Each structure stands twice: as structure tokens, then as C-alpha cells.
């Protein structure tokens, strides 16, 4: 029975090839870049302070791990990032739903939010430092600020584009405002919220580096800054690579699957794979 249901061998091979060809091509690109980098070091002929080789960076990574610096910085950065992302997203969704459903709130708050959206978080960080000092409060506030606006605007879009026909249908069945919100508006807005979250999560990563450079004594952003200050450029590059890999992992293992699942469950398409 199982033999009749199993996919034919050529089909299985094609599926395997399709599944692995993208990551393998990506890996080949990275290896090619590393090889070109390593080969270019003797050709450039500069000191490792100006132009560290991949071997220097690997040695620096090992040293930072052996000395316990990298795990602590990574944990600190992740904690700040997740806290800022969670609070910023919750606030963005809450305010987005409020503005989306309430015309008075929309009229009162929209100009203010449009103005604040234009003032980037880097401009706020010095003020936050004056108000809250150096440390975790300032960093988390900067992250909340960065995440809030993309989530807010995407939530707002989702709420305003909820199908009116479904709202009317649920109302005609006797649903109250809370039920309309829970059964129609929030599920309709969910794909937008998740898209906003993904955009905000990317912005938050940049915000984290800025905030840690200015207002922290630990964290990956601080490592990037401190590496050049102490003439250990390889450490700076380790920080940059860790930051990039961390973002790739968060996007690949969390944001993309969640977005795909949300779109498939509540969105307008059945196969969200095509969208990513």
C-alpha cells in the first residue's frame, strides 16, 4: 500500500534538488566571498588592524567565546531585542486597532504619529540617555520606538481593509463590537500585523546596534564599536557577522514561518510559499 502511495524516485529527487538547491547556492556564494577575501589579504598587504583576514576573524571569534565575552554580549543583545520587539509590537497593535476603529482617535493621533515616524530613533537616543541614563532602559525604549510604527501602520491597514461584507454578516447575526473585532477584524488584520512585525523586527536590529553603540557597555553593537576603539578590527567584524547570522536565524526560523502560517490561515492565498 505504502509503495503505491510513495512518490516516484525521479519526483523525489527533483523535490530534494529543489529543496536544497537554494541553500547550497547561498552557501557557495559565501564560500566564494571568503576565499576571495582570504586571497586578497596578501595582495592588499595591510596590517590586520586595517584589513583582517578571515583567519584573524575566526581566531577572534574563538578568543571571544573562550573568554566568555561573546555569549554574554549575545544574551544581553537578544534580551534587549526581544523585550523591545514584544513591547513595541503589542503597543503598535493596540494603538493601530484603536485608531483603525475610532475616527476621533485617528484624527487626533495620526498627524502626531506621522511626525514622530519621520524622527528616526537615532535622534531620540541622546534624549533618552539624558532622561534614563546609559543602559537597558534607553536601549529598550529606542527599540520600542523603532518597532512601534511599522506595526502600527500595518495593523491600521489591516483593520481598515477588513471585508465590510463579513462585518455586516456577523453583525446581522447579533454580534457585539467585541465579537466583530475578535471574529472578523483581528483575523483580517493578522497578515498585515505579521508583515509589520517582520519589518519592525528588521528595523529593531538596526536600532539595537545604534543604541548599543551609544548607550551600552555590553552587547553585540557595543562589541562592534569597542573593536575599532581598541584597534581590534577583527572583533568588529565578528560582531558584524554575528549580527547578520542572528538576523538570518530569527528571520528563517521565526518570522518567515509565522508569516507564512498566518497568510495561509487568514490571508487571501492558499500557498504562501510563492510570496516568500
Amino acid at each position: 500500500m505504502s509503495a503505491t502511495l510513495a512518490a516516484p524516485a525521479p519526483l523525489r529527487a527533483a523535490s530534494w534538488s529543489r529543496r536544497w538547491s537554494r541553500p547550497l547556492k547561498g552557501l557557495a556564494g559565501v564560500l566564494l566571498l571568503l576565499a576571495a577575501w582570504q586571497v586578497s589579504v596578501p595582495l592588499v598587504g595591510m596590517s590586520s588592524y586595517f584589513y583582517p583576514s578571515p583567519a584573524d576573524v575566526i581566531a577572534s571569534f574563538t578568543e571571544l567565546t573562550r573568554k566568555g565575552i561573546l555569549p554574554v554580549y549575545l544574551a544581553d543583545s537578544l534580551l534587549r531585542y526581544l523585550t523591545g520587539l514584544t513591547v513595541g509590537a503589542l503597543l503598535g497593535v493596540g494603538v493601530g486597532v484603536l485608531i483603525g476603529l475610532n475616527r476621533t482617535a485617528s484624527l487626533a493621533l495620526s498627524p502626531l504619529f506621522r511626525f514622530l515616524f519621520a524622527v528616526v530613533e537615532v535622534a531620540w537616543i541622546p534624549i533618552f540617555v539624558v532622561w534614563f541614563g546609559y543602559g537597558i532602559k534607553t536601549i529598550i525604549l529606542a527599540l520600542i520606538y523603532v518597532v512601534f510604527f511599522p506595526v502600527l501602520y500595518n495593523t491600521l491597514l489591516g483593520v481598515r481593509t477588513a471585508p465590510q461584507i463579513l462585518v455586516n454578516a456577523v453583525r446581522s447575526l447579533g454580534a457585539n463590537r467585541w465579537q466583530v473585532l475578535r471574529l472578523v477584524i483581528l483575523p483580517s488584520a493578522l497578515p498585515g500585523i505579521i508583515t509589520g512585525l517582520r519589518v519592525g523586527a528588521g528595523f529593531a536590529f538596526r536600532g539595537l546596534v545604534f543604541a548599543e553603540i551609544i548607550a551600552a557597555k555590553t552587547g553585540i553593537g557595543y562589541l562592534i564599536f569597542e573593536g575599532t576603539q581598541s584597534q581590534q578590527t577583527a572583533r568588529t567584524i565578528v560582531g558584524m557577522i554575528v549580527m547578520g547570522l542572528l538576523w538570518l536565524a530569527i528571520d528563517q526560523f521565526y518570522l518567515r514561518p509565522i508569516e507564512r502560517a498566518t497568510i495561509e490561515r487568514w490571508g487571501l492565498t492558499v500557498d504562501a510559499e510563492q510570496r516568500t
Partner: protein
Amino acid sequence: MLRLPALATACVLAAALLYWLAGVLGAQHKLAALEPLPPRANYAVTLAFPPERFHQLRLQDKGRVVEVRKRTVYIMDMSPAALHDVAREYWVDTIVPWAGR
């Protein structure tokens, strides 16, 4: 549908648990000879390498760092809880009592 996030979270939690467990077991091993611990005491904490600013700042949170000589940091007035925190760090090699200045 959300198997990948669940799996990734499980891996991260497992790694964090192993890291914590390794720290606890390491601390027990490093402090075995010092038991019972007095309420407050002075210690010489030796690292596997000369301490950087990062290590000195972390140790400063646990007591009064009064001197750094080669790989050893001399700390006064450490409580048992602070000593356990220091011993859990895998980059701490040995901890011995120190008479102080």
C-alpha cells in the same frame, strides 16, 4: 505549520539549560575545597587568561576588586552568593581564599 519556530525554541532552550547546568556543576567543583563558605571573605580569582575590561567589570559587580596581577584578580568582601556567581563563569579557572591587604 509552526514546527520550525517550535524546534528552534526547543534548541535554544536546551542550549541555555546545558550552559546553566555546566556552570552549576563547574561552580560545585571549583568551590568544593572552600566549603563551608564564610558570610563575607576575600578571594583570589584566577582566570585562564589575563582579564580584560569585560571580566574586571563583571567581577566588580560581585565584590571590591582591589588588584589585578597577571591572570589573577583579587577581590574583597564577597558574599557566598556572589562567589557562586563568579564560580559559575567558565572562564574562571580557580578560586582560593586570600588574606587580603
